[in-house]
């Protein structure tokens, strides 16, 4: 609290010139005039009691993102289940099975349905419970709430009510949307981090009404009374309209007075506020769209297959009922078949009987529709999700968070992703800046390489090795230009924000540099040109800096390390402890702060005007290089060339750059200017801002360039490598960020989405255009830009040319409108990388929708903040970065990972596996049910289409649920075409998913055809073998039970052999489950046969007594199982030998141990197994090598 009070003395608002000047009071003190609908909210401050009953009862602060509650669970979950056509069909069939129409006994229809539905609902319940627990975690967060008499008590968030006065402490989240009353600062401002709302990391200043300033301690709320009338809850984050009635006065309220839920209080020790919107009324919750239930492409396609099967079902039912009708009408009546009591079968009325038979047939052939498919898939997905959660390679040790599949029904979609839409801050970057390099007076300092350079260097070294081995003669010459590898001893006591390493500047050595005076100026700018506040760390006694942006923090840390420790700030001065090599003790110097021209995204620069101890007035300026270079004086350009070159290199290395400049001011010149500036500042005209800007602009001219800094926006670990791999896997990556364009471009460079030589297409609208032109004009302008760019892309001849599209949020609003969006999308698809900056959360979602719907491909959105929620929910797959504070993104996501780099493994390994597993599993499911179901149909033709089934009811009941389910589940859970390492080494393998090679109609119908073939073989071989002769040596002939059991055994053997052929990865589990399935069938037969005959009927002792001693039974099994699978085996052998797919070849290379014996070949194959890519550092290396070759070629041609 000590430093808190120290700071409270400081009126921060006077530090800023534009951002938070309190405009003179009189100007806009009119209360907002609003009435009628939309503005009905009435909040009685400090009197929550009023809000407990109607009409002022508003929703509580309890939030719930669960799908069901205790009461709604049953109806809602049941409804969800029966939305699946197949389940509805089975429900109907189960209902009909209670009538005599049914060919089966009721239990054999109802039991599987109950089992299947029960399992699915259990899964839903468990998932819902997890959601509930997560909600409760948020709901149980504590906040200080005023309970009367000036006493504040900690209460859980869910107990906070509208009208409550709450006190929020530093680094806590606001529990609801609050009206900001006062803060620990005298002038009632506070800093808010809205990363969870819009992803912006710089702090926002909020400011209370002046009238509430005196309410600055707990006791003053004893009898605070006021009312707020304002707009109704709405999702608009950036507007607020309301009036505040206090002391019989009405004051207008605006956005600066509103603290939004889920934003965080920063740099301010506490604030007081009144709850206006709570719980689901709060703006952030209003923004949250209801989490849509997503279904994967495969599942959608599966529905179509189910419809195909339904058609088949209806078709064969019609055939059999027509057959039945004809058979009954044409046939001379069988005297032994009189009509039954209910007249359902009546030989005298063949057509009525035929209609009734249709229903029977529809139930009978229900086995074509795999009832257990959904539940098996769900089970498999849960297990797959378990593996994803357990993967130790996706476990982040720093934060102790594993990857988490939050909804398991999208696993296979991970293997089909085409476009990744990524947030930047917190996703690609850790939002931590490291001072890495600088260029001072045309000399470069800082020997460490950025991560991007290192990654590229590694890649290059590897490629060159291959090149030189394969005997390319340019190899050695290119090698010369390869960057030095990572420097040793890199991580000795690292300082956060400072990765600089250069002996020339460190430890005061700068003093011995040739241009020490320039360096001194550079270091002073570093230490003085900022708006940060130093804070004493109570533990270590050192200083930490609270800066508006992390860049600034990095500069100050750097300055401190160079010996210019910024230590104190007062209203008018900045104190810097300078450590000069000449003297051992640091000298504390005071610089008078005369003016501060702060940073805006429009100005792209900030300056301070200071007076040093000698009375010299200086303007120190830092800003974007283009801006600074425009403002240099003729004499100040001496280092321009060198600096520009360095800046280009820095940008190429993915660093954020700023140029530093200064100007010496004559006192008279300054004072003249300052007079005008002050005048402008206090003026009450509407164009005050413009005036201030003009004056600042006037001042920031004729500068002298000092140098430039390069700050590494610290990427999350492994991001460039991951992006590279993803690019090689053929994925497109879009970056959508709320950040400024420059930052976004820098990050683009840093993660190799952009590179030197890539043609950048920037589509923007400038401010003037917006104000002066009509809407239509702007649109036309944008359309022109887009068409021009498209033309350019189309006309490009060079196959290696890559384009990058950069578009800002304002432009995007137009580009996303219906008439432009397709052109925009087409252009974007043609570009290698797309960066959208300054986009709002809503726009992120819109862009995602555009990509998803426009291209029809699978999209994945990844982000970490609440601002990404829309996009995460909109995309086919949403991935949240967990481990950081905000949970909104994770809560909305389908998968959460701790680091961006885990995305590679999630997609390339798990996605690939899951896709193939599920695809193969579904195909097999259809196969086995067709193979089984059709035998029922054929048999029916032999029973006069009467609807008799050859199998016992129990066989059929067990077929899907027990006898064939486990191997297919093991296929779905454990199958691996290649191991995870190979998946990562051959990223191109991933393309099998997006191309949907394993679940296209060709393949599906292939499997169905296989099922048809198998059913024919099983049925006809069996009926001919067991036709009418004795089937064993003691003369008995086969009855229906014998034929049925033998046939069923053949089905079991055939489908289990089939799955063994389908699998390519056998652990003991698969072996066990396949054998287990077959053995279970025998165990069941024996046990069932041992039951009393009134339960087992004709199956009584059938196996032990009748079948097992008959050699023909065993011979028929062998024959049928082989005959069923022979064509499939021939087919896959043929395919593998003469038309192999990627994974076949990799398997073979591995099988022949090429990876061990012939490492060179292995590496060559590996390098070829990448998708042609234009982004990522591999592309960068390729481009560089190409460039060098061209140069070499030119050289050699000129030489000859």
């Amino acid at each position, binding site marked *: 609290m000590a430093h808190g009070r120290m700071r409270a003395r400081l009126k921060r608002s006077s530090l800023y010139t534009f951002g938070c000047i309190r405009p003179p009071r009189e100007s806009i003190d009119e209360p907002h005039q609003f009435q009628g609908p939309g503005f009905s909210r009435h909040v009685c401050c400090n009197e929550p009691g009023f809000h407990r009953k109607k009409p002022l009862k508003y929703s509580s602060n309890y939030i719930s993102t669960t799908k069901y509650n205790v009461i709604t669970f049953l109806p809602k979950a049941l409804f969800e289940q029966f939305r699946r056509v197949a389940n509805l069909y089975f429900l109907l069939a189960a209902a009909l099975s209670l009538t005599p129409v049914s060919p089966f006994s009721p239990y054999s229809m109802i039991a599987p349905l109950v089992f299947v539905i029960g399992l699915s609902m259990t899964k839903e319940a468990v998932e819902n419970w997890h959601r509930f627990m997560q909600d409760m975690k948020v709901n149980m967060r504590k906040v200080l709430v005023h309970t009367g008499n000036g006493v504040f008590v900690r209460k859980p968030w869910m107990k906070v009510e509208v009208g409550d006065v709450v006190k929020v402490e530093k680094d806590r989240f606001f529990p609801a949307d609050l009206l900001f009353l006062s803060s620990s600062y005298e002038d009632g401002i506070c800093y808010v981090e809205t990363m969870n709302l819009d992803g912006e990391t710089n702090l926002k200043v909020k400011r209370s009404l002046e009238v509430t300033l005196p309410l600055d301690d707990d006791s003053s709320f004893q009898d605070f009374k006021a009312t707020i009338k304002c707009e109704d809850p709405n999702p608009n984050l950036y507007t607020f309209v309301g009036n505040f009635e206090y002391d019989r006065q009405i004051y207008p309220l605006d956005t600066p007075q509103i603290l939004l839920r889920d934003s965080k209080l920063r740099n301010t020790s506490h604030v007081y506020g009144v709850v206006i919107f709570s719980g689901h009324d709060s703006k952030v919750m209003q923004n949250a769209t209801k989490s849509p239930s997503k279904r994967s492409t495969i599942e959608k396609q599966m529905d179509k297959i189910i419809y195909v099967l339904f058609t088949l079902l209806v078709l064969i039912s019609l055939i059999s009922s027509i057959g039945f009708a004809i058979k009954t009408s044409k*046939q*001379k*009546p*069988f005297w*032994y*078949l009189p009509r*039954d009591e209910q007249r359902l079968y009546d030989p005298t009325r063949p057509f009525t009987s035929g209609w009734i038979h249709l229903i029977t047939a529809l139930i009978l052939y229900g086995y074509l529709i795999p009832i257990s498919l959904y539940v098996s898939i769900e089970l498999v997905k849960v297990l797959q999700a378990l*593996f994803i959660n357990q993967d*130790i*390679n996706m476990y982040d040790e720093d934060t102790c968070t594993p990857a988490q599949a939050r909804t398991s029904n999208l696993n296979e979609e991970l293997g089909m992703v085409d476009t990744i839409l990524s947030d930047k801050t917190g996703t690609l970057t850790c939002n931590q800046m490291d001072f890495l390099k600088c260029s001072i007076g045309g000399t470069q300092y800082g020997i460490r390489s950025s991560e991007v350079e*290192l*990654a590229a260097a590694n890649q290059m070294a*590897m490629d060159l090795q291959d090149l030189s081995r394969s005997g390319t003669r340019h190899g050695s010459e290119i090698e010369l230009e390869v960057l030095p590898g990572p420097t040793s001893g890199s991580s000795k006591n690292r300082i956060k924000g400072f990765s600089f390493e250069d002996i020339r500047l460190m430890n005061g050595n700068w003093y011995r540099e040739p241009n020490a005076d320039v360096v001194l100026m550079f270091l002073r700018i570093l230490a003085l040109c900022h708006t940060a506040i130093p804070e004493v760390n109570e533990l270590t006694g050192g200083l930490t800096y609270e800066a508006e942006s992390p860049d600034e923090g990095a500069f100050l840390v750097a300055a401190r390390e160079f010996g210019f420790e910024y230590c104190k700030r007062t209203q008018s001065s900045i104190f810097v402890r300078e450590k000069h090599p000449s003297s051992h003790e640091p000298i504390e110097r005071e610089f008078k702060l005369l003016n501060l021209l702060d940073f805006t995204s429009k100005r792209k620069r900030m300056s301070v005007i200071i007076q040093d101890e000698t009375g010299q007035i200086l303007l120190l300026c830092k800003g974007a290089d283009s801006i600074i270079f425009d403002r240099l004086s003729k004499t100040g350009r001496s280092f321009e060339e060198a600096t520009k070159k360095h800046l280009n290199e820095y940008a190429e290395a993915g660093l954020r750059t700023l140029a530093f400049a200064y100007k010496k001011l004559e006192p008279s010149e300054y004072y003249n200017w300052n007079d005008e500036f002050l005048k402008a500042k206090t003026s009450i005209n509407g164009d005050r801002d413009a005036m201030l800007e003009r004056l600042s602009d006037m001042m920031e001219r004729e500068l002298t360039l000092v140098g430039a800094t390069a700050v590494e926006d610290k990427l999350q670990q492994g991001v460039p*490598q991951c992006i590279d791999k993803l690019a090689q896997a053929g994925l497109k990556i879009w970056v959508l960020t709320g950040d400024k364009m420059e930052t976004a471009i820098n990050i683009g460079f840093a993660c190799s989405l952009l590179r030197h030589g890539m043609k950048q297409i920037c589509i923007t609208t400038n401010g003037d255009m917006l104000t002066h032109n009509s809407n239509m004009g702007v649109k036309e302008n944008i359309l022109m830009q887009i068409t021009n760019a498209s033309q350019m892309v189309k006309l490009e001849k060079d196959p290696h040319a890559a384009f990058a599209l950069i578009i800002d949020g304002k432009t995007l609003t137009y580009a996303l409108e219906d008439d432009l969006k397709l052109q925009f999308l087409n252009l974007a698809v043609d570009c290698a990388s797309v960066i959208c900056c300054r986009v709002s959360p809503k726009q992120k979602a819109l862009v995602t929708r555009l990509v998803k719907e426009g291209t029809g491909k699978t999209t994945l959105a990844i982000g970490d903040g609440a601002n990404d929620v829309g996009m995460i929910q909109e995309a086919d797959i949403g991935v949240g970065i967990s481990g950081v504070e905000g949970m909104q993104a994770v809560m909305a996501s389908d998968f959460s990972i701790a680091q961006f*780099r885990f995305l590679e493994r999630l997609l390339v390994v798990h996605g690939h596996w899951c896709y193939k597993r599920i695809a193969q599993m579904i195909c097999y499911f259809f196969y086995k049910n067709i193979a089984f179901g059709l035998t029922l149909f054929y048999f029916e033709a032999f*029973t*006069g289409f*009467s609807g008799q089934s*050859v199998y016992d009811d129990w066989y059929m009941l067990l077929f899907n649920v027990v006898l064939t389910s486990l191997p297919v589940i093991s296929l779905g859970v454990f199958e*691996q075409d290649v191991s*995870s*390492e190979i998946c990562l080494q051959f990223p*191109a393998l991933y393309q099998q998913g997006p191309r949907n090679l394993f679940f296209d109609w060709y393949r599906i119908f292939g499997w169905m055809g296989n099922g048809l073939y198998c059913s024919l073989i099983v049925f006809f*071989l069996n*009926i*001919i073998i067991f036709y*009418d*002769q*004795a*089937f*064993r*040596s003691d*003369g*008995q*002939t086969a009855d*229906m*039970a014998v034929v049925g059991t033998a046939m069923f055994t053949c089905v079991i053997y055939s489908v289990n052999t089939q799955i063994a052929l389908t699998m*390519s*990865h056998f*652990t*003991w*589990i698969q072996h066990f489950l396949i054998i287990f399935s077959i053995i279970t069938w025998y165990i069941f037969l024996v046990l069932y046969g041992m039951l009393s*005959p009134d339960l087992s009927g004709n199956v*009584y002792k059938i196996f032990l007594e009748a079948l097992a001693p*008959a*050699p*023909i039974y065993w011979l*028929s099994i062998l024959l049928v199982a082989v005959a069923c699978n*022979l064509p499939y*085996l021939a087919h896959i*052998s043929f395919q*593998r*030998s*003469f038309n*192999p*797919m990627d994974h076949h*070849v990799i398997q073979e290379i591995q*099988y022949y141990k090429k990876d061990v014996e012939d490492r060179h070949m292995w590496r060559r*194959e590996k390098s070829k197994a990448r*998708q042609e890519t234009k982004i990522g550092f591999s592309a960068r290396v390729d481009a560089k090598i190409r460039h060098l070759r061209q140069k070499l070629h030119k050289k050699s041609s000129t030489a000859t």
Partner: protein
Amino acid sequence: MEVDAGTTSAVGTDNQPTPVLRGRSKAIHQFTQQTLPACKPVLTPAWVIGTFFLMGVLFIPVGLISLHASQSVNEIVDRYDVDCVPDIFKNNKMAYIKNASVSKSCHRYLKVHKHMKAPIYIYYQLDNFYQNHRRYVKSRSDEQLLKGLGYNKTSSCEPQAFENGLPIVPCGLVAWSLFNDTFSFSRGTKKLEIERKNIAWKSDREHKFGKNVYPFNFQNSSFIGGGKLDTTIPLSDQEDLIVWMRTAAFPSFRKLYGRIEEDLEEDDIIVVHLMNNYNTYSFGGTKMIVLSTSNWLGGKNSFLGVAYIFVGSSSILIAFIFLLLHVKNPRPYVCIFLKDEGQFSNGCS
């Protein structure tokens, strides 16, 4: 800067350090990380050709043996339903079969073509008789067969459940339509003994048909179906009924009638004395008598052997085709990804 060291999904590192674990925890680790030891069979040409060849080599002999076994079975089949109708009824078979006063007795002469070794099984065969019709199959009560009169939940047996207010034992259409042609045989003048015991499954006799259940009220209605039952013999000993109640799977079926337990010599003439009682005329069914020997494979059916030989020779054929294709056009096993297609080319170096 730590680029490679910490990244678990590192780019160029082939060997990831796996934690050293022992015993159970190792197994669990392998399971959760999906690295359980596994065999990954690869269909290499040698393997494929070998498998197909082996299958052929295995199947053809089995087929030959089965075929031989089937060939060694002798059977005599004789359709009698038409010839047993006296000439005057030829155009009105229905009248013949329904007229109780006409003698149904009939003689058939069967010539033995080959020596038939005892036991020789006697079957009756019905064609176009739908014992597998759902209406028919349902119409029985297994529990009543076991428990007798005491059990009266016999609604499935309708309309053959109650007659004159009394329950029918055995109930249902299956029992009601019991086959009732009878056969006796003689060779020359000497009567051939027919063994009619042990023709049904042992389990059926012992556990499915009650030892204390006697036929009751059976075939007492105006509309008589098939055979009648001796009300003094318990159901468990009515083997004809037991065999009949095992419903056949196909509309054409044989059922065991008895055994002749002496050899029949070549060129023997067997005289069959039969009572042609059963009505197949109304629906166009046929009746046959079959004498057949059997061996380990059962009766005469060469299909199994033929199928085995067919499958075996197809797989040898496939093996040869593969061999040929492979010799002519071997695929190099080190191949190249074509970048744009992700597929392989054949002619790669």
